[in-house]
């Protein structure tokens, strides 16, 4: 929606050994109101090109890039939490609905 002739283009890159493509995509989703993205994944790095409107509101492009980098870090933590807690989440739900007839016999 924002991509246009007079948009700014900025590249960010992320190390594939540290961040999964899924983590990066989830983080970018949150910025869809401010810019659009191209994502290119190579062997070692994922390159993200931001298309930012020329009339970007404060706090500006540098700040936007740093927020995106922080969000990728946050998303990485979120992914660790959901990986580790997937089983226990199911266990809690199973207990919560244990007298509802939804438990396998």
């Amino acid at each position, binding site marked *: 929606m924002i991509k246009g002739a007079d948009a700014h283009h900025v590249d960010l890159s992320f190390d594939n050994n540290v961040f999964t493509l899924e983590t990066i995509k*989830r983080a970018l989703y949150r910025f869809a109101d401010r810019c659009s993205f191209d994502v290119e994944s190579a062997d070692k790095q994922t390159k993200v090109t931001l298309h930012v409107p020329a009339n970007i509101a404060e706090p500006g492009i540098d700040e936007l890039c740093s927020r995106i980098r922080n969000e990728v870090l946050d998303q990485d933590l*979120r992914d660790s939490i959901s990986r*580790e807690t997937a089983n*226990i*989440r*199911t266990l809690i739900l199973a207990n*919560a609905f244990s007298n509802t007839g939804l438990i*396998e016999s």
Partner: protein
Amino acid sequence: MSRLGKKFRLPQAFDQAVPGQYWMLPCRFVNLDDNRYVLTNEVGEHLVVTRPQLEQFVRKTVSFHGDFYHDLKSKHFLIDDDSNVAVDLLALKYRTKAQQISQFTALHLFVVSLRCDYTCQYCQVSRQTDDKLAYDMSQETADRALEFVFRSPSPAIKIEFQGGEPLLNFPLIQYVVDQAKRINENHDKNIQFVITTNLSLLTDDILSFCLAHDICLSTSLDGPQDLHNLNRPRPGRNGYQLTVEGIRKAQAVLGRDKVGALMTTTEASLPRVREIIDTYLSLGMDAIFLRALSPYGFAVKTGQAYKYDVDRWFEFYKEGLNYVLEINRQGYPFVELYASMIINKIFSPFGTGYVDLQSPSGMAISAIVYNYDGDIYASDEARMLAEMGDKKFRLGSVHHDSYEDVILSDTVLDTLEATLSESLPMCNDCGFLPYCGTEPVYHHATQGDAVGHKATSGFCSKNMKIFRYLFTLLEDDPEARKILLSWVRP
């Protein structure tokens, strides 16, 4: 619906804790500001933590002996080898929160007439006509709607009369109240009645009836005289005067707690939040609901909904909330109802019945609307959308469909499944999820999709701002915290 019906495995199928370690329990987080995060879990417990603390928690380097470890454990963000009981406790708390889903439907709205004596610019539904037959609910329709009401499993039922101006069809209100009480002799539900009215047609007889049947009145009051009359034009331009007189009269007969008022925000309201609150105070009201203008119906057609954006509305809201806190500091208890609902979600084990702040969506679960012609809608907003020609959330008709047809309709079930925040992109890992909702009709109206794209959603952006502001107050302003906590219902 097959996914909802999937069965769970027995608890023994999962590994238990191993001594000497801790395990994270399911949780989510969202940044509060540049340095802090709000961490919440499945049952709405929360902790505000710094970025280094968050990293320590996830990387398993929190010291076993510190306060932070103790906080994480006591609020169920982790278990260790001597705390397996936490899983049962969390399950119990989760079940308490989810209880409302099985106790549907508590609020039943009867649109007894679309006719109205006002010509409000933002009104979505009313008609200026004397043609009673065309736009008034009939006894036959009311009877069919009452059959639906008493099929609801909810032990507490609220019947709200809406319009147009419902007092234009007062005989039908009397009929419904009498019938509902008679039918309830066999059901023993806790029934409450509310009439949402502009009060201009209020008479002593109507008040006597309300007193005899313990009926509450809810009216519209947009602020000081010029603002109210600008927003709510009426032939004679005396809407404010009639409303204020009506409020005073009703308070005298029914008691202050039986008369409430709602305000609608328009562009003209934005610079005047203090005056609006002062108007409520001068009438002895003890609460105000600082609402955003809904994006439905004539509000969209007249361009009103887009005239101010979320940022401008939030400035209005923040100034209003700060003023409300100031009033409380001066010793006058006064509540802002949206903040109060969120605070209750944060601190009370019981969910709120407020339709907009529920997951899955509260439509048909929390509220159901019977239109004057017998059409059934999932919410008042759904009815307004239908008035604009979009009947996506019409569930059926009391005349042609059975209760089962309506409650188990694809519109209800698909929307419920699609609006479980736990499965929505962005919401599923947002720390505010336990306190937020989904608003399918809003997202359908503004984005063409009931799920909505949260990064660009006005609903999400508005709620994020309010949640952040409330958590900041709770954390950083002890006096404000004390006032906000006093709004938690016991």
